[in-house]
């Protein structure tokens, strides 16, 4: 087991002190990522999925307070010095952000930035790093990489910029790619292109991937395992099929049923989740989902459920995880 584990996180909690009070963005999250696997973290805004990733990369502002334990290739991420952390960022784990414009510096050429990323971790000459930049741009499917290496980010389209960001992320052969909504800002046909690049690159380098997204379709195709988050907590986690078809958690079910599907021939009402996600400053007592949950009972209002085992490597945070009525995924689709 030890060999396989790349990242192991236990009881990670992140809160922010703000004028309005303490924002509990991530609460007691534990999970792991094995070498070469794709773990998707799914959730709506405010579910804590991005803050969780930023906590691991140690890229949070000063008002953040992080507790817990996170081990990456055996090193404790949360207690490393900033200098040691810099060695891991980019080389051990690298990030692909949603908006490529914020990840690229507008005043340097794309090639310069990739070469710079290479030279931070590898002692190679500038010309050699530039050569490597051209190779990387070629790998992510940028046409005429020899010329485009001298372009500035604004001269690239959105899809091309995201490809450049991916090139930069893989420039030091990281073991773990953290992709935070990597295709969300792109047009549908460009999304497919970028997804193809990410998966090709991930396969070619053998890197593991932590894919953070709200897109249940994207996850269905690429994830080995899925972790559903709500109100800063893990609500369900397991193999992709188990989570999609198992339906052991009321929130996961509600999420799956509220999304219209492309292959849906009927236009029956969507089953919407009533209410809005909880405020992370004033979380409800008991289960944080109870005010919106169709199955909630008295116990849910007083006692927060633990993660309950409901299959091999499959857990769900619900008092009734193992006794919920049968869930027929796709029952609404009149197929």
């Amino acid at each position, binding site marked *: 087991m030890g060999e396989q584990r790349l990242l192991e996180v236990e009881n990670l909690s992140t809160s922010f002190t703000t004028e309005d009070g303490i924002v509990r963005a991530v609460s007691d999250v534990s999970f792991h990522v094995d070498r*070469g*696997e*794709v773990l998707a973290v799914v959730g*709506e*805004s405010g579910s804590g999925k991005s803050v969780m990733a930023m906590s691991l990369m140690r890229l949070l502002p000063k008002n953040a307070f992080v507790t817990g334990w996170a081990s990456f290739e055996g090193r404790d991420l949360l207690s490393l010095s900033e200098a040691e952390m810099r060695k891991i960022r980019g080389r051990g784990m690298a990030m692909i952000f949603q908006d490529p414009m914020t990840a690229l510096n507008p005043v340097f050429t794309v090639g310069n930035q990739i070469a710079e990323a290479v030279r931070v971790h590898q002692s190679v000459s500038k010309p050699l790093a530039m050569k490597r930049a051209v190779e990387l741009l070629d790998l992510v499917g940028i046409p005429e990489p020899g010329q485009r290496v001298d372009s500035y980010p604004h001269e690239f*389209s959105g*899809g*091309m910029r995201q490809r450049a960001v991916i090139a930069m992320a893989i420039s030091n052969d990281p073991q773990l790619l953290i992709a935070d909504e990597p295709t969300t800002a792109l*047009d*549908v*046909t*460009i999304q*497919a*292109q970028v*997804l*193809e690049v990410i*998966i*090709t690159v*991930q*396969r070619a380098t053998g890197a593991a991937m932590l894919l953070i997204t*709200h*897109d*249940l*379709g*994207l*996850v*269905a*195709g*690429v*994830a*080995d395992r899925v972790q559903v988050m709500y109100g800063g907590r893990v609500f369900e986690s397991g*193999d*992709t*099929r188990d989570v*999609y*078809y198992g339906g052991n958690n009321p929130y996961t079910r*509600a*999420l799956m049923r*509220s*999304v*219209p*599907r*492309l*292959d*849906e*021939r009927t*236009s029956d*009402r*969507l*089953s*919407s*989740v*009533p*209410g*809005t*996600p909880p405020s992370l400053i004033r979380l409800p007592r008991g289960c944080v989902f109870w005010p*919106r949950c169709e199955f909630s009972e008295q116990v849910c209002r007083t006692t927060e459920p633990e993660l309950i085992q409901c299959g091999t*490597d499959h857990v769900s945070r619900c008092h009734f995880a193992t006794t919920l009525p049968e869930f027929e*995924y*796709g029952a609404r689709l009149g197929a």
Partner: protein
Amino acid sequence: MERGWGPEMSVLSQSRPSQNGTPILEVENLVTHFPIRAGVLRRRVGTVFAVDGVDLHVYPHETLGIVGESGCGKTTLGRSIIRLIEPTAGVVRFNGEDVIGAEPKRMRELRQEMQIVFQDPFASLNPRMPVRDIIGEPLLIQGRTRKEVRPQVAGLLEVVGLSPEHGNRYPHEFSGGQRQRIGIARALALKPSLIILDEPVSALDVSIQAQILNLLEDLQDELGLSYLFIAHDLSVVRHISDRVLVMYLGRVAEVADRNELYDRPAHPYTHALLSAVPIADPDLERKRQRIVLSGDLPSPAHPPSGCRFHTRCPIAQERCTETEPQLREVRSGHWVACHFALGAGETLLARVEELHREVTVLAFDPIDTDNDGEAGHPVHSG
């Protein structure tokens, strides 16, 4: 979030003429171009062909969905129809009446009938106004007194699933979904018969998105509204629309009844677009072969010659580079602008192979049930 339709509804559901059969909205050859200016003298150096000859009609009580990627002109189209942007040429008729040529006074009256809801509920509500005034403003502008307006605003808030007390609050006190409800209430205030919905749910989380889609459907049934639903999310558009129109670079690529378009797309662009959308079903998703179009979307300032899609089309022929295809009816009510439209049931991949062309296909490994499988393996074929 479902609420009973109380007596407040009477403020809205006054008798409405039913005109089944004749379109409520007709758009013919609508053109909206924007000049590109440069230099000290702001000389015109180019043109953005945002909307470049669009025909469509919307029937009473119908939802026409408009889909397309950025730069296809869908937003400009919606705004040009109600003249928030003055179109360059073309005809817009509302209940048979010319909209483009309407005098300002008449236009104000027509705008009571045609309303718009915008994408960003954060940007489209005035932060300094209480919600009561935001919703009541259109009524006041139309000459009603504050006293008359107050109960109507309370009724409107209830109709969209908020409570009358919410009227005293300011926009920042509301969540994204609630703000969109406020935007919808404002649009409903003047009892329109047509609402243009410009990406009304794309800024919202999925659980909230479903609430708003359900609300829109309820309102349509209750009030007999017609919708022009503009969006980039093909799944949402299929769900809400009766008919769907696909745009590419300012032109109509294809239009058909919802299931006809999604089940039997005839335009290679529509086919590729549908193919690019992932489906939230692991077993199904890993059986699909998704076509990945190469290249970027061309700029609407420099649309390609001939068929605008030919630069990215995997089945384009010489004719496509020269002659722009016109919309033709391939099956009943199914119109497509393509010289080499796909037949019913014919897939784009089959046509690509027939032509011995190459195309990138995104396909994933099926999930190994022994749980040691690796996922996500794109293969290239063709």
